[in-house]
Structure formats: structure tokens, C-alpha cells
């Protein structure tokens, strides 16, 4: 039995807007094994991004626990959380979130530098990573000189910088067109296979279904169902407002 790299127990999150409490997560229990490719799917407002933030240590739950590699992250202090984000987890965002004043190469080097790596080693490794994602010829371009798909590739290379155990991708294809989105999904799957990184994506892009080992469907803050790839059923029109890719 593979060990669980992410485990949530009774996860609840309530936001207080003025006087009205908004219950976004109403009790989530999931277990994600090492090397799995998981998609968390659901309509807007279902709580996927909030769940994603909980798993990634970006926000604290109102109730329940999150374990990363069997360590309760609520027990970690600021230093340990920063270390977790630096070494254990790689993040990919819908809006790419590259540092605009730095080139692609420097963006990928940044987490390595935070992690204490020597500059020359960091540069060598970053170049290799950027070549893996197909941007070997664009090392010294700044983000505004790259297309959306290229920026997301840099973000993927950056997420892999410190050989993390988990990659968290929040709507990675949200700002990309159909073709580029497919390329990015394919790239993520390749990384999942070659580097044995667990990938957890929060998305409402149905193209993700093909490559996921398991899909967790979320609606209204609770898990509707969890499907293994073998049992995936795609009903057109099931997910609100989306067309089957």
C-alpha cells in the first residue's frame, strides 16, 4: 500500500463576510497517494480553490486537519511552512504568476536560490528544466516577451525546481486556448510519469480527465464522488457551463 502524501480529515472552511458566514468546505476527507495524478473538479464556487489552498498550506482550515507526508501542517511555524513551500510543493497558477522583472531562467532559479542552492548549480539545473519543457531557446526572455503557453511552461519548470513531491496546479489551463491547454496537460502528465511527482489540479477543464488517475468531484463544499480512471463517465452538460473538451 503506497503511503499517502496528502491526507485531509474532516476539512471545513467558513468565511465570514460581514455578518453572514459562508461555509465553503463542509467536511472533506481525501487521501492522495504518491505519484498519483488527481484532478479536483467542480463548478465555480464549489470550493475547489479553497480546498487547493488548504492542501498547499496557503490558508488555514476552520476545522479538520491536513497532513502532508504524514505531518500535520497546522503544527508548522512560519519557517517550516516556507520550507514546505520551497522544497516539498511546487505551485502552478491560472495567471502564471511569474516575476515580471526576471527572465525565464531567473524565474526558474528563484526557488532554488531560496532553497540555498549555489548560483552556478541553480543555473545549470534551470537550463535543463527549461529544455525539458521545450523552452531551451527562450532562457533570457522576460515574461512579457512570452506567450501564455510559454509562461505556463516556465511556471511548470519553476514548480519542478526543487524536485518537489507534490505539484499543485490551480486551473493551469484556465487562461490558455484549447490547443495550448492540451499541450500543457500533456506536459504535466509527462512530468508526472517521468519524475514521479504527485500532481493535484483544481480545474473545470474536462480535458484533464484523460490524464488523471482519479477525479474528485466537488459540489457545494462536499465530495460528490471520487472516480478512478477506469470508471470515468463523462456526461455532456453535467458540469455547469462547460463543454466536453
Amino acid at each position, binding site marked *: 500500500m503506497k*503511503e499517502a502524501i496528502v491526507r485531509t480529515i474532516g476539512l471545513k472552511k467558513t468565511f465570514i463576510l460581514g455578518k453572514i458566514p459562508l461555509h465553503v468546505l463542509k467536511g472533506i476527507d481525501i487521501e492522495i497517494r504518491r505519484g498519483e495524478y488527481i484532478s479536483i473538479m467542480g463548478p465555480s464556487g464549489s470550493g475547489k480553490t479553497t480546498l487547493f*489552498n488548504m492542501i*498547499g498550506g*496557503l*490558508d488555514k482550515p476552520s476545522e479538520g486537519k491536513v497532513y*502532508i*507526508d*504524514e*505531518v*500535520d501542517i497546522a*503544527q*508548522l*511555524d*512560519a*519557517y*517550516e511552512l*516556507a*520550507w*514546505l*513551500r*520551497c*522544497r*516539498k510543493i511546487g*505551485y502552478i*497558477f491560472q*495567471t502564471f*504568476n*511569474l*516575476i*515580471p*522583472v*526576471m527572465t525565464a531562467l531567473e524565474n526558474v532559479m*528563484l*526557488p532554488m*536560490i*531560496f*532553497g*540555498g542552492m549555489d*548560483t552556478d548549480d541553480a543555473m545549470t539545473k534551470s537550463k535543463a528544466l527549461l529544455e525539458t519543457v521545450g523552452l531551451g531557446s527562450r532562457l533570457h526572455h522576460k515574461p512579457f516577451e512570452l506567450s501564455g503557453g510559454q509562461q505556463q511552461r516556465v511556471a511548470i519548470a*519553476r514548480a519542478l525546481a*526543487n524536485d518537489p513531491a507534490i505539484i499543485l496546479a490551480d486551473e493551469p489551463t484556465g487562461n490558455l486556448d484549447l490547443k495550448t491547454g492540451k499541450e500543457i496537460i500533456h506536459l504535466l502528465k509527462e512530468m508526472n510519469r517521468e519524475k514521479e511527482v504527485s500532481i493535484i489540479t483544481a480545474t473545470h477543464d474536462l480535458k484533464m480527465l484523460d490524464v488523471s488517475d482519479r477525479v474528485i468531484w466537488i459540489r457545494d463544499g462536499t465530495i460528490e464522488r471520487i472516480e478512478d480512471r477506469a470508471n470515468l463517465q463523462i456526461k455532456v452538460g453535467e458540469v455547469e457551463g462547460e463543454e466536453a473538451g
Partner: protein
Amino acid sequence: MGKWANIFYKSSAITEEKMSAQQTKRIEKQLSLPIKNAFQMSVRSIRIRFGRSIIVTMSIVLGIAFLMSVMSSNAFIVSLIKNGPESLKVSLQQNLDEMRVRQLWLVSLSLLVCVVGIINAMLMSVTERSREIGTMKCLGALDRFVVEIFIIESSMQGLVGSVVGVILGIMVTFLMFLFKYKGLAVHAFPGLILLKYTLFALVLGTVLSVVGALYPAYVSAKMEPAEAMRREV
């Protein structure tokens, strides 16, 4: 530990251990931002937001120029009293005594206005870059790295602004005295005292810039990554 305590607490670099241990086992960490990289990022940020940087720097330039011109005019007067003809001595000495308190008040006020301007500009900068800050924290940046970057930026702007301000202040004053006292002004040029005042003005200008950046840096350190990146700017 309070947020400030975290920022100023020195983290020791120890070797890392695998994290799949029990909670009692110490998690040893090694996170760093080398000064060279911090400087590089600060310089780039200044260059990319050049317009804003110029405004912040101008604020220091004007404040320090005013300070410097007041101080150097005092220096000139003292020097003229020493080296000039008897006829000038009495009138100049009288002027000097009257002006001191008023000068102190005016200069302090103008420098205060500058610092407020810097605080405002840096706060805007922090807000605009909240997504960048949130992202860096996701990459493992400690709060203190973000603070460092803003402080370095501010002190560089302060230093450059002070240098320009000092030159401007001395030049304006010298020209004024040259116009009024002609050759005597050159003869009585108080070089050594001006040097002392220059050093003081440079340090003061840089320190004030850093002071102006402290509150905005605190704001940037307090940001949680999730909320920072959600912010629409």
C-alpha cells in the same frame, strides 16, 4: 512568536532531514536569500518602475537639497564672519542668531513631508506588487526576504537622492553667495565644514528613506500568499 519576531529572528542554516518523521522530530531548514540576489532584484524593480522611483527619489532630493542649502549657508556665513571685513561681521552675526530656530523648524517640516511622501509611494508599490509577493512566498521566501528587498530598494533611492540633493543644495547656496559677495565667497569657501555636513546629509537622507519603507515593508511581510494573489490590482 509575533510576526516581527519572526522577521528579525536569525534562522541558522542546518542540514535538512526528510519530512516524513513524527512531529516531535525537529524539522531542520535551510532558507536563504543571498545579498547579491536581493540587490539584483531591488535594482531591477527600481528600473522597471522608473517613473515611480524618480518621484520617490525627487522627494529626497528636494528635502536634502533644502537641508543642505540651509546648512551650507550657515557655513558660508560663519566663514565670512571669520574671513570677511569688519563691516560685515556684526550684521551677519545678528542674522545668523535670528534664523537658527526658524531654520530648524522649516527643515524638519520639509524632511517630514518627504518621509510621508516616501511612505505613500512605497505603500503603493507594495500593493501593486502583492501578487509578486504572494508568489515569492509560495516559492519559499521568508517574510524577512520580502522586507529586505523593499528596504534595499528604499535605501538605494535614498542614497542616490541624497547625493543629488547635496550637490543641488551646495550649488544653489554657493551661487547665491557668489552673486552677493563675489570674490569673497570663493575666498571664504568653507570646504571642510561642508564635507562634514555632506556626510551628515547623506546618512540622514538614506536613513529617512529606510524609515519611510518600514511600515510598507511590514505590510508586505504580513501578507498571506492566498489573499495576496487574489487581490485585483
